[in-house]
């Protein structure tokens, strides 16, 4: 399944899949999240807030030269790692390419058990937000 993933996302997913133990996977997620570029305080707005997460999560983004550029931050480290998979892994793609990425890869990593709205990890809600941003960009004329 990782074959079909965009290269940056694929690399991170392979890193997660390289270990079996869930604690080790979380450590990798924390490390991945630690590499994420900080967002400015003024970006932590109500509009950018992803609801339904136990931790405070902000995600935003839009088109830059025809490609999606996402940014985000979560105040919990594991969620921040999950967010990084999407924010880093899907930036640089066209809106259509973003929309073509299935979120199922996350189940195979074992760090998220079910793709349902969950307050604990928030992955699904973050994924939905990223998709909505790509869809909005696509409707606004991006390809």
């Amino acid at each position, binding site marked *: 399944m990782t074959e079909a993933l965009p290269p940056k996302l694929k690399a991170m997913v392979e890193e997660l899949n390289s270990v079996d133990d869930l604690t080790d996977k979380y450590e990798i997620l924390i490390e991945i999240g630690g590499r994420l570029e900080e967002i400015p305080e003024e970006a932590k707005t109500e509009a950018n807030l992803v609801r339904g997460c136990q*931790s405070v999560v902000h995600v935003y983004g839009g088109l830059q030269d025809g490609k999606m550029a996402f940014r985000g931050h979560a105040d*919990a480290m*594991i969620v921040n790692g999950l967010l990084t998979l999407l924010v880093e892994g899907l930036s640089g793609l066209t809106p259509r390419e973003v929309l073509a990425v299935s979120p199922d890869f996350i189940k195979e990593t074992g760090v998220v058990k079910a793709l349902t709205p969950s307050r*604990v990890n928030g992955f699904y809600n973050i994924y939905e937000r990223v998709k909505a941003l790509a869809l909005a960009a696509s409707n606004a004329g991006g390809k």
Partner: protein
Amino acid sequence: MLDVEKIRRDFPILSKTLEGKPLVYLDNAATTHKPESVIRALDNFYRQDNSNIHRSTHGLANKATEDYERTRRHVARFIGAACAQEIVFTRNATESINLVARSWAAENLKAGDEILVTEMEHHANVVPWQMLAREKGLKLKVLPFDDQGLLKMDELDSLLTEKVKLFAFTWVSNVLGTVNPVEELVRRAKARGAAVLVDAAQAAPHLGVDVRKLGCDFLAFSAHKMLGPTGVGVLWGREELLDAMPPYQGGGSMIEDVRLPEGTTWNLAPWKFEAGTPDIAGVACFDAALDYLEALGMDEVHRREAELTALALDRLQRVEGFRLYGTRDPSRRGAVISFNLEGANASDLGQLLDSMGVAVRTGKLCAHPIMRHYGVEGMARASFYFYNTGEEVERFVQDLQRCRKILGVPAVKA
């Protein structure tokens, strides 16, 4: 002295692994596990006795009705009720409180009247009153707690004005673990003429309950937090109050006679509050849960939990950055420990502990006002039951130490 190894063999789920590691279940304040006897009773009901109750004349229906009503009598004995008619079965403690709000309070309170709650209530004992207050023009007042998680008793009398018609409070806090001085609170409220509802969801599983000794008017709790099934709650109410209260929901079995277009009359309490087919199997097997607790003895249950809590508090104090919410006084707290580790997010702690096989609860714990009191986004909560062991407590603390190390490196940019 409880034989914990023997007890643990009665709970099939306790031998389960989580993420390949032996499960350490410390989320008992959310729900407890079920012993074999309860699981068997549930299974047996559907295999042998399944039928609807209070309606048909055949033998199965009679047996199912007897199973259901036997549990009602058992609950009455378990909490020292005057009679079985004082026990109403609901879906959970939340519904029990909503029933009182929608029936007794809606009937007896008028615009300008006041309801007193405390700052440490579970949302279940806040939101029903807020909804009613909004509709009827009532005022909600709040008895605060101090930073030790103890109610500010010196503010009680000034809050209990003659306008306060109901004082609804929790016996044991689901977050702070505080065991409130329930008898004193009831006595002082009754002295001012207020009715009293006690939320016993976190008390009934751990402490002996005697409603006559408490002197309150209503008491609510859930079966699933005390070895019973989900979907069964209890409302105890004083008989004369229940008799005078209007029904909560309309439907089958809560009526005496139905006439068209009007003129319908109600069944007697408690059945007039049990519209429609209830969770018959759940109620029937709750009987086995009460048997189990009685065989252990509630004093033993409490003593065992106090031991585990004392051990956990002792070990946790040695964890760098450990912050406890609630009192350290063992005589004033139950088996609930809510905490944070400085610099760590509670949800990270919960997920990491889960990955190590340790189940705790994290988040706002259905108590946003308590989070606001301490100015935190969330907490982690470990809660014990009599089947937990000292080894489990030690493993929890060791794993928490490991979480601290993992979360310390690398530091997330602020």
